């Protein structure tokens, strides 16, 4: 096999550049030489595949990893993983990590003066079903300060990591909350030039998935790179 069906490149302005000076850490870490353009080969269009067998059933519930429940607003976060062509991606591994309700991470580098929660680790994972659906139960994280600039605050967010079907689809992103006044002051959000692409990072309130007397819900669909033509019939 010599010619592969490649994944699309992203549209202009829909992805951040490596260098974005307002986010200070990019200054010493962004490449300075031009990227070497290369065609996708078998090595890029393939990638690690996962299945529900790889993940425990309870790993998508971040509220049940300790003796008691964590503090904070319980929420259901769910959505679909699709490619740019609208095709659902089954068996996509979705990993999530986040701060606790006070805006503190269970991590030695986080010295924010906010309480740790002994009942919250802040990591979960799940594999999408046949229709590309995923669902987590967790608590709403708090906003927290960081030292990027004077009085800098990160809007509340969840970190998401995704594996599609090819390494070229690999994505790490962040989910934000609707109506958060901190969004427009956040260099990470603002590093995405296109307004619609920024909006894609903001979840929507999800009335249908709320659980009365128990949890509110947000919806966050995630779109990975797609291909222009129908992929070749596969053997497996």
């Amino acid at each position, binding site marked *: *096999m*010599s*010619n*592969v069906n490649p994944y699309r490149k992203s*549209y202009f302005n*829909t*992805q*951040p550049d*490596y260098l*974005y000076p307002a*986010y200070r*850490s*990019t200054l*010493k*870490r*962004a*490449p*300075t*030489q031009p*990227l*070497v*353009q*290369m*065609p996708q*080969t*078998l*090595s*890029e269009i*393939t*990638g*690690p*595949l996962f299945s529900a067998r790889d993940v425990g059933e309870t790993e998508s519930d971040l509220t049940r990893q300790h003796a008691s429940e964590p503090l904070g607003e319980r929420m259901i976060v769910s959505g679909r993983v*699709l490619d740019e062509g609208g095709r659902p991606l089954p068996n996509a591994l979705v*990993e999530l*990590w986040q*701060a606790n309700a006070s805006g503190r*991470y269970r*991590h030695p580098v*986080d010295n924010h003066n906010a309480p740790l929660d002994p009942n919250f*680790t*802040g990591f979960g*994972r799940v594999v999408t079903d046949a229709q590309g659906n995923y669902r987590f139960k967790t608590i709403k994280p708090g906003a927290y300060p960081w030292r990027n600039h004077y009085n800098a605050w990160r809007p509340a967010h969840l*970190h998401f*990591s995704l594996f599609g079907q090819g*390494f070229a689809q*690999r994505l*790490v*992103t*962040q989910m934000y909350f609707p109506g958060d006044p901190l969004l427009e002051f956040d260099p*990470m959000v603002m*590093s995405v030039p296109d307004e*619609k*692409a920024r909006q*894609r*990072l903001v979840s929507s309130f999800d009335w249908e998935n709320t659980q009365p007397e128990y949890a509110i819900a947000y919806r966050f669909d*995630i*779109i*990975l790179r797609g291909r222009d033509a129908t992929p*070749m019939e*596969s053997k497996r």
Partner: protein
Amino acid sequence: MSLLLTAAQTVGPFVSIGFEKQAVPNVAAAGVAGERVTICGRIVDGDGLPVTDAVIETWQANAYGKYAHPDDTQEKLLDENFKGFGRVLTDAQGGFRLTTIKPGMVAGPDGRPQAPHITVVIFMRGLLKQLMTRIYFPDEAANAGDPVLGLVPAVRRTTLIPTKYADGVLQWQVHLQGPNETVFFDY
């Protein structure tokens, strides 16, 4: 139908909360066919300081040059016990260590074979999206004809080829910036 691609965002400084437990530092279990290799190295930033909060992920073919993936239709042997995915985090010195097997050659563009290589993505605080690169192998005659290495300016190719030490360990330094800046790809 065309949906807008979700934008990448940085992993931030706290990625190890989840990924430490999901690390895969040993890519090839005992019994997997192939020459065992250990790849060690360090990631340094534009000031030469170690990057202590990076995640390196690797993807590779098995020793026969076959990917454990249905889109690889090459008629080559699959190894049931080999997935080919690795994930390591850098330590307090910016160092990492991955053990695996040397992959075989796989088909490349226009039917030209590709020299043995490992596909690499790197995430860290300060990277708004992942870096994409490759690891090739030293003392590998096929490197000279590799269609992807051939796209890299000759003076920079060495940044993709680790150095083999006397103990057999491969040393691969990743320089994010500077005169020895590692080659990063776009595809």
